[in-house]
């Protein structure tokens, strides 16, 4: 037991920082401005230990038969790094978020809850046991329910939180039901053991199918794929924009990491020489995922066409992106996972960037409505051009990183000879162009209703903005670093 502790160093650090933040806030109640920096320093230390994990590939807390609760492997380490980076960015966003001013005396809670989420997500990406999966999802959810309604003062904020709690509660209940059925079938909660047990012929296929889909419901809620997406627009619209950005990137990344590990560890018999997975013949996950991903992206893209609120628009766009990312799982190959990892690297940057600008603009004009964006491109050229770059990248046009991300997905699809799915996804891209470009149309092509004075962001925010824009352009032109990072993060323990 104790000799596994070195494998969970990041989790330990996160817990310590969490406690530190609470204590610091109790002692120095009048210095909330130090909290974000404390958090950032904590995350820096965490990232050091996470990077260390790229070289590990083993179980932690293994029991007598060498099957452990969680695993540390490069795949998990990649998602942990992604989570740490997006947390740092979101914490830096939070410093200048005006929505949080109304809750200035409770900022200690805000940052400690973020660390609660981080801890939950860390366990999610490395869990190899159904019990730990459930606990980590709950840990993430409980923290995010509170954060979604953190500012309390607006009606839609409380609505967001309540909706999130209800949807989340129901779906985690369903997931728990699925877990209990799997336990009943196999007598174990360890994914690796389940894998070898369900290959036996005496397993009841129908029951297992039922249980698998129930568990997918819980994960599907976290990654907001159709038909489990209904909470997303309302929560994204109502929550403080920093939390919206965080939910759309980090929480989704953790959900996908969990899903990939769950599917790959539990339901894969072997991997052939070309990297394609041989699925155990119980659930036709492939057709199931094709269906889910096509419905998700189409629904997300078409619903986004009618949105007039930036946060809602980006919410539906993030649903659509979940559909695209799902395509990487559809191909059931290591190449697909590579595409997902590349996609997430890029998606995190561009989506956080887009939300950042929405926040900066809302700070100034106090609105997220598209109608109020009219003529904004001329009053704030820097933010306007940056938002244009992020939206073009989200559409997936070269020479931005978004194109590279999509390219790798389509490469995976074409290589798996799933041309039809690729064409549907590409047509979806054309649809998505329409609503992304509508934002730019309002900003540049339309006359402003009222005169907006010129404004720009503060110097630190501009630096942060450049740090987000630069990689989008750079990786669009020279993408070897992203792909090499993804290649080194491909190893899942046990394969």
């Amino acid at each position, binding site marked *: 037991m104790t000799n596994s502790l070195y494998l969970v160093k990041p989790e330990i650090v996160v817990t310590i920082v969490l406690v530190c933040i609470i204590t610091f806030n109790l002692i120095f109640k009048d210095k909330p401005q130090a909290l974000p920096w404390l958090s950032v320093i904590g995350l820096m230390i965490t990232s050091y230990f996470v990077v260390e994990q790229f070289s590990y590939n083993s179980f932690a807390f293994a029991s007598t038969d060498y099957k452990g609760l969680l695993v540390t492997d490069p795949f998990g380490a990649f998602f942990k790094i992604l989570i740490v980076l997006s947390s740092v960015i979101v914490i830096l966003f939070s410093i200048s978020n005006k929505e949080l001013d109304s809750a200035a005396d409770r900022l200690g809670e805000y940052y400690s809850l973020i660390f609660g989420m981080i801890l939950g997500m860390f366990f999610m990406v490395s869990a190899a046991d159904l019990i730990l999966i459930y606990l980590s999802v709950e840990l993430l959810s409980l923290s995010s329910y509170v954060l979604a309604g953190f500012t309390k003062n607006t009606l839609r904020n409380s609505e967001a939180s309540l909706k999130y709690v209800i949807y989340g509660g129901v779906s985690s209940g369903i997931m728990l039901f699925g877990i209990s059925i799997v336990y009943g079938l196999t007598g174990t909660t360890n994914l690796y053991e389940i894998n070898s047990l369900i290959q036996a012929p005496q397993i009841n296929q129908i029951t297992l199918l039922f249980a698998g889909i129930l568990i997918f419901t819980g994960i599907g809620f976290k990654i907001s794929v159709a038909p489990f997406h209904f909470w997303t627009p309302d929560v994204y619209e109502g929550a403080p924009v920093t939390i919206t950005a965080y939910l759309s990137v980090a929480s989704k990344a953790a959900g996908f990491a969990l899903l990939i590990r769950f599917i790959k560890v539990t339901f894969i018999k072997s991997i052939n020489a070309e*990297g394609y997975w041989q699925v155990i013949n119980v659930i036709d996950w492939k057709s199931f995922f094709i269906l889910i991903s096509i419905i998700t992206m189409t629904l997300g893209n078409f619903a986004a066409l009618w949105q007039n609120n930036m946060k809602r628009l980006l919410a539906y766009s993030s649903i659509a992106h979940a559909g695209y990312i799902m395509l990487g799982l559809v191909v059931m190959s*290591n*190449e697909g996972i*590579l595409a997902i990892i590349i996609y997430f690297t890029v998606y995190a940057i561009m989506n956080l960037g887009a939300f950042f600008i929405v926040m900066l603009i809302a700070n100034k004009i106090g609105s997220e409505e598209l109608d109020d964006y009219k003529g904004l491109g*001329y009053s704030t050229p820097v933010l306007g051009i940056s938002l244009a770059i992020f939206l*073009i990248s989200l559409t997936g*046009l*070269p*020479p931005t990183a978004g*194109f590279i991300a999509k*390219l*790798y997905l*389509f*490469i995976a699809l*074409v*290589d798996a*000879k799933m*041309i039809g799915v*690729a*064409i549907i996804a*590409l*047509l979806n*891209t*054309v649809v998505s*162009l*329409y609503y992304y*470009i509508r934002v*730019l*149309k309002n900003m*540049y*092509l*339309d006359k402003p209703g009222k005169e907006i004075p010129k404004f720009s962001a503060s110097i630190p925010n501009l630096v942060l903005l450049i740090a987000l824009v630069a990689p989008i352009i750079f990786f669009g032109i*020279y*993408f*070897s670093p992203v*792909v*090499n990072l*993804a*290649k080194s993060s*491909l190893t899942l323990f046990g394969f």
Partner: protein
Amino acid sequence: MQNFPILSLITFLPLIGMIAIMFIPKEQVKPIKILTLVITAVQVILAGLIVAFYNYSAGGINNPESFQFVEKFRWIEISGLSWIGKVKVDYFLGIDGLSAPMVLLTAIVTFVATLSSWNIPKSIKGYFALFLLLDTGMMGVFVALDFFLFYIFWELMLLPMYFLIGIWGGPRREYAAIKFFLYTLFGSIFILIVMIGLYFSSTETLVDGTKVFTFNMLSMMNKANFTPTGILSPFNPNNLRFIAYIALFVGFAIKIPMFPFHTWLPDAHVEAPTAISVILAGVLLKMGTYGILRVSYPIFPEITHQLAWYIALFGMINIIYGALCAMAQRDFKKLIAYSSVSHMGFVMLGMASLTTAGISGAILQMFNHGTITSMLFIIVGVIYDRAHTREIDAFGGLANQMPVYTGFVTLAFFAAIGLPGLSGFISEAFVFLGAFGVEAIRVITVISTSGILLGAGYMLWTFQRIYLGQLKDKWTELKDLSFREYAMLVPLSLIIIFLGVYPSAMLNIMNASVNTMVKFMADAQTLYSAMVRF
């Protein structure tokens, strides 16, 4: 000269200019304009240098050795033990007789368009920054020989074009801009999917003897480089080459624009400012036909043979449909837009013939149409700047009021009709010469000749309505050409007359490449004959 990176320079000079413009305060209107003008002028000089140092005997097309001004180095390479994610992209530029005329055309048209943008009313800084970005994209498409690079440049033009139409355009500019954007993006997704398919079907042998998948277009043109099982490989009995060809063709046809994908063009032209119309008609439309000649033809030669008849048929529809539409227009600019549809039909007809004369005619027609239509759009712009209307029936008798202007109009109109002695005649004659010699498309060719008659019909009728007859009282204030307008119209006129009298100047450049292509296509017919399947 062959080792000097002149193609990179001509492609990325505008991009450097764009970055420079970003740093000029936007009140400094004059420096921005002059910088843009200087950059486009330097481009013309560079294009001139390319022609001056051009080796007339080098064929190009499918032979990497005979491309000129080649720049090739590794851009992206993802290696590693496992093959997953292994991608190799080359920064591979080069020109042959197919692209050299296009590079020259792009440089000239962009220079003229810069002059034409001189009096843009608002946001001058943004306008010229986007204009130069567009310039880089256009130039890049014509010099790229790596499919990946080609696609990046292809897509790079979309966004600047959207804004240039959408911000500086006419009353319905938003509709026109988004229509253009959606149409072209719809087309380019097909190009993308075929590109990925070809990537998985063709290999390139590295120096150390290993074979890797490649985006290199020239490798894809060699049948021996295809893998046995790739979905677009001719060796695979279940290949999808036929479908891929059609997908690729649709992607390019939207840009031409080919009937029935042409509907974005009149809208975009009518709403775009004059300079952007000039670019659109002068350069962008050529990308469609250039793409077909550069990509579809040599990579899928056997399907090209199968479908040449249909290409000719659609060419004929374009010629006649475009001419009939043009005849029905009341808006001067829309009329010119539809005449473009008609004239691009000649290019398709020439291409479909697969003969030396036909393909030479097609490429020459691309160049000539670029210069003639640019001139026509400038002519529309001149009158719109003064009268603020383009209604044909609103005018009459302008020849007396603006004699010099009318002189240029006469030249451009007759060049568009195809009067001997002007450049339009030569290219159309070559197209018909080539197409008529091919038994299969002879009927189509004969029907298409009526396009010339229709062209003369709408052009002369328009001329009569606008420039002849009684001058209306409200137009007695109109002034004749300004110095800037001379500067745009004179060079284009000279080119039109020069190529009308001495077309060999251009034909010699493309001759070796056209011969290479015709021979390649003819050889391919036997080479691929065993594996043609529907």
